């Protein structure tokens, strides 16, 4: 079992999402794309002081 399959199995169990084994290849493919894109964002250097975009006004 690769890391993504492990993440899908464990993560879906922790989140109580029932998964049919037939769905796993498509979920894995989508997860791989999303994590690849997230890694490109993660790789961009930002200062600690960089504020996230959403602003909450009480």
């Amino acid at each position, binding site marked *: 079992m690769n890391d993504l399959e492990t993440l899908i199995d464990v993560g*879906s169990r922790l989140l*109580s*999402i029932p998964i*049919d084994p037939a769905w796993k290849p498509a979920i894995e493919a*989508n997860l791989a794309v999303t994590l690849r*894109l997230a890694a490109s*964002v*993660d790789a961009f250097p930002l200062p600690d002081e*960089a*504020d996230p975009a959403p602003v909450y006004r009480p």
Partner: protein
Amino acid sequence: MNAVETALARIAERNPVLNAFTAVTADRARAKAAALDASDVALPLKGVPFAVKNLFDIAGIPTLAGSLINRDRPAATADATLIRRMEAAGAVLVGALNMGEYAYDFTGENVHDGPSRNPYDATRMSGGSSGGSGSAVGGGVVPIALGSDTNGSIRVPSSFCGIFGLKPTFGRLSRAGSFPFVASLDHLGPFATNVRDLVLAYNAMQGPDPEDPFCTERPAEPVDASGGIAGLRVRVLGGYFRQGATAQALAAVDTVAAALGAGEPVELPEAARARAAAYVVTATEGAALHLDRLRRRPNDFDPAVRDRLIAGALVPAALVAKAQKFRRWFRDNTLRLFDDADILLAPCTPCPAPLLGQTTLDLAGETVPLRPNIGIYTQPISFAGLPVAAVPVWLPNETLPIGVQVIAAPWREDMALRAAAYLEQAGVCRWKPCA
């Protein structure tokens, strides 16, 4: 009354092919039209029929958002804010429009209702997720429709269906009474066959709304788009926005650029990373919205939507927070482009409308998955929250239209609409009635 009866007749005539409507509000429309006929009050949209993507609340109808699951929801008890404002300006609601499930779509296909179809070729996509809106306006059924745009869902159907669309500044128009998708990115806006109607609809819908905490507190800023383009500094977005596009997409941008007298191209910094960050925010916020439905009714989703949402639920939260931090950086650096430009130009889509059922695209010699790649040029722009007028171009000898994004600085919809009006008046951009 005549315009409303004409619209109802066209729905009966054309919807069997277009499949744009999921509900027709004929009784309500006739009652409203009769009341308007009996009134002497002058209104900017008096008697003009319009329809809305079926994620807008319509009193008396469940808000489907393109899904099977939402059919079990109780009927909405009130109209969405934007419907109320359109009707206050005299427009008449005639129905609800087909859309991709839960707006997670660029194709206009829907496994529950069937696809909305392209008005110029019924074997082709309308574009998503506001596919019914594009199909109904492009097909000449109604002159105005409303839709939503999270990553491109107004601009993509505008491009494929050859119509004008406005994705306003993020936060400009109230989202109250619409079914959400991604709170950080959702916008609502109008489609129309001409810029005059687009502006009238936009002006009618502006203004703060305490029911939507994301809606700006700026007062309404009514637009007069008739001012021409004198003084507007226009630039084409290069780099990322020239890569992977078909010859038609690039020719459409170049045609508009020539008509507007565009200067040297400029680069939007880190556009690819902005698209990546928008993708991450969309997948994860969308997953959070639907988490309970994924637990209870996973078999009632479109499988393609369900599998993307489940994947989104499994992305570590730290990566989402980084995407939101990057958004702030991207916003600050994007705004610097407007020191030297008022209007930026980019393709709406990398190609004209693909065939229904098509799953891949051939872009710059590479075969890529179709669904995620239709929005590559729209996603960075909405991630920055910039207002965009989508304008339709018919290239010589082409049988399908393709759209161009006319992009302005935040809160400067007026500039994008002035450019769009000029392009329409000059005959460069136009809606073409179907044969």
